[in-house]
């Protein structure tokens, strides 16, 4: 595994270059913000008709991560579906593909702001998961410790390249968005600077995981936006 290894509250974790988080001791693979069905949702609302291929592209990458790590449990950290109707409308072939990935392992859905409800796919549905010594929830709670979350789609820039990234400090890790059709929020945004401590690092994803000090706003904005 050519990931970046780190420890959070005593748990040994690896930030994989794909954007997934691997907890070897629990054989748990966590991914966040898949936003499956985004193209369907936009079209349904009378917006543009994006190439309807993000579900298969995202599932193909998830399948590759599962094949490489052979997890006992997969945890989807919220915003797995772009909305609940998009989940219902998932084309049959892609719904079957997802079911196939779920077979033979525990599957945990944490609910996100885009998909606040149970899924029709089986598995366990939770608002958050406490799996000592860690807590998994979609949106980071200020002041929380030993927390794994998603939601913000953090990204950071190094050497002219902007990439989705993990943000890691002593108290928490924020996962990058795993879905194909996802944008990012720069790590120097006030919301992220307020959550992460001064020694936070960013682990850029891509072909390999590259760790750098978390890029921050050089000048502190006067008022910080509250996290959504």
């Amino acid at each position, binding site marked *: 595994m050519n990931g970046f290894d780190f420890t959070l509250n005593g748990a040994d974790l690896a930030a994989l270059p794909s954007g997934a988080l691997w907890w070897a001791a629990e054989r748990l693979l966590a991914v966040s913000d898949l936003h499956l069905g985004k193209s369907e949702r936009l079209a349904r609302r009378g*917006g543009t008709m994006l190439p309807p291929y993000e579900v298969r592209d995202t599932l193909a990458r998830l399948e590759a991560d599962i094949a490489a790590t052979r997890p006992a449990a997969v945890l989807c950290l919220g915003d797995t579906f772009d909305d609940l109707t998009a989940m219902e409308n998932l084309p049959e072939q892609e719904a079957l593909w997802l079911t196939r990935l779920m077979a033979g392992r525990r599957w945990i859905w944490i609910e996100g702001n885009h998909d606040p409800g149970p899924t029709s796919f089986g598995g366990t549905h939770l608002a958050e998961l406490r799996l000592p010594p860690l807590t998994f929830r979609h949106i980071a709670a200020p002041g929380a410790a030993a927390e794994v979350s998603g939601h913000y789609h953090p990204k950071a820039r190094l050497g002219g390249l902007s990439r989705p990234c993990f943000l890691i400090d002593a108290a928490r890790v924020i996962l990058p968005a795993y879905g194909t059709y996802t944008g*990012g929020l720069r790590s120097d945004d006030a919301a992220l600077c307020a959550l992460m401590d001064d020694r936070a690092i960013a682990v850029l994803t891509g072909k390999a995981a590259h760790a750098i000090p978390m890029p921050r706003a050089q000048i502190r904005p006067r008022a910080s936006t509250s996290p959504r």
Partner: protein
Amino acid sequence: MNELPPAFAAWFAARGWSAHPHQKAILARRMAPAQLLIAPTGGGKTLAGFLPSLHELASDTHSGLHTLYISPLKALAADIRRNLRAPVEEMGLHIRIEDRTGDTSHSQRRRQRADPPHILLTTPESLALLLSYEDAPRIFAGLQRVIVDEIHALAESKRGDQLMLCLSRLSTLCPGLRRVGLSATVEDPAAIARFLARHPDPCDILHADPGPDPDIAMLETGAPPPWAGGGGRYAIPAILAQVKRHKTTLIFHNTRAQAELFFHALWLANEDTLPIGIHHGSLSREQRERVEAAMVAGELRAVVCTGSLDLGIDWGDVDLVIQVGAPKNVKRLVQRIGRANHRYNAPSKALLVPANRFEVVECVAALQAVRAHDLDGDPRPPGPRDVLCQHILITAAAGPFDAGALFAEVTTAGAYAGLSRAEFDACLDFAATGGYALRRYDRWQRLQQTGGKWHLRDPRAARQIRMNIGTIVDTDLLKVRLKNSRGGTPLGEVEEAFAATLTPGDTFLIGGQIVRYEGLREMTVEVTRRASGSPKIAVFSGSKFATSTQLSDRILAMFQQERWPGLPAHTAEWLALQRDVSQLPRRDRLLVETFPHEGRAHSCIYGFAGRNAQQTLGLLLTQRMEQAGLHPLGFVATDYATLIWALDPVTDPAPLFDAAAMRDGFETWLAGNAVMKRTFRSAAVIAGLIERNVPGQRKSGRQATFSSDILYDTLVKYDPHHLMLRITREEALKGLVDFGRIEAMLERIEGRIDHMPLPRVSPLAAPLFQEVGRVPIKGAGAERLLAQAAASAMAAAGLS
């Protein structure tokens, strides 16, 4: 009828004027379905276009809209409204004239829709918006004439294609609609006529007296120009002397960044503090308007500018045009020269300032071409299909349509006359379903067919289609403001990619002043004037123009002269030395020099294919050299040559230029290229696949919006034959990639390659070593470099 109607004759006479022959001619033939007037600046072109309308409105009791005037510039529409008011009022005509642009108030626009004026002055985008309303047939009922001003400029961009599709719609709504085009001097009037007329209607072409030949020369400077680089700063003393000697001078530059640097240097040397301004497209509107107003008031002695001043507005008493840097294109040069001296029948005065030694040759070639009235230009390509996709959506927003009827209508636009039904259907399918091969949107189509007619599935989509109207796609720009408690003065805009490279304390030039980057706040770049030291240069998007084929051919022909009496001695000696040491490039052969320099093996390829094509050639050749194990390290390209450096020398260049292998490599390279992604983005925005970034929307949707690169990569992976990718490819080939000119070059030389192995750098290659814009070749090393950078950043922060 070759005489003016009495009221008009009296008006001309009262002013001591007589009508120009072309003004009478246009009035005499006013019933022709299409007329194209080619006239130099100052020839009373606009009045000529309006005379038939004034005539008809004077003698008629026309109600509703009679004439639509389209200009590429909002400011021009407002300008024309003021200028028309004089003759209308003085002749006592009761004609309502109004303009309608993006700046027109909401209430005014609503009133115009309910009760249109006799003459409406507008822009292509505002017209397209009007046509997207359901009541378009009522708004345009009774329309008789449409005047397209500066049609030569519109014809060079997709705005012109959109306009002509709109006119095809108007001609259906208003049978018998007559079209008039007003154009500056162009190389192929017949092509503009085909572009303007409703196909297959005929189009009259009227030529105004072109006036006397311009008084144009190369600026004499004390010092010879430098060997390489741009900007022309060496010529500042001579240019200031010219500014002093003239009333008002326009100083044109080819790029915004060069204009900024030049203006800064000019200001430092301006000991007499002559009032000099700067004007280019990246400056804020307030800044530009201030300069424009000062120009009109005659308060400025000179303006440093770019193409943003190429069009339209009458700037008053400009008596000298200075072009800094090689003009690259003769037609544009002639049109720029026309900006000087708006008095008809007085020669325009212009000076060329070559920025470097090679540009001396190019300037002399351009002077010859101007004197020979030999203008250049590429044939107009067929109408772009992304614009057609948008037009289909606009049509649907206005109401249900029949596909066959719409196809018949759009093929009356000259640029789309050759469009096949299959191509049209592919665009319609894209607009309706997205046009995807592997999965169809059946339930959520954007357009649906009911009773044989296509219509919007969700009427809410009309609003989004209207928000997306237009064919100008800006790269992501960030506003630059002076930092203070009240929000600060806007200075202009920079590209987001440039802003991302800045760290607080960095300095750059904008609006002629050096500013210090302080930080980014809510998508605004905040700066202060606390700047010292030399500026980092703002990289504006100003595309680099490539030297035209015609001009390149003239340069190559000049190389074959025995001696060069027309060139300054320093340049003639340089060419003679090149002839002694190596040879001068020829049109039907390809010269490749190889020589060692500073421990690297260099190859110089004189393709004369223009900067964009030479750049592509550099990418392709280094790719082939990499395969051949020659370890290329980088290259640099200019309009005439590509210089490549490598660890191992090229001993036989011929196989590198194998056309088939090069085409193969090209296809692979093209798919992953950044230029393709940029081209894709603008085609996708125009065609309606991506919504435009609307200010304000962006902030709230920052996680929701994702890069268009992702869509491009997804399509390449899953749907490689999708319409958007086909359009992207065609656009990229003729634009920034310009592979067409490489193909043309390979065809021309037919394998005749002259390889000159030399012991050292040749005189012609030497300036290339000073060129900026070197492209390093990154093979598999990119990730490794990234890893090294990451490790050192962690180490520096004590976090390893």
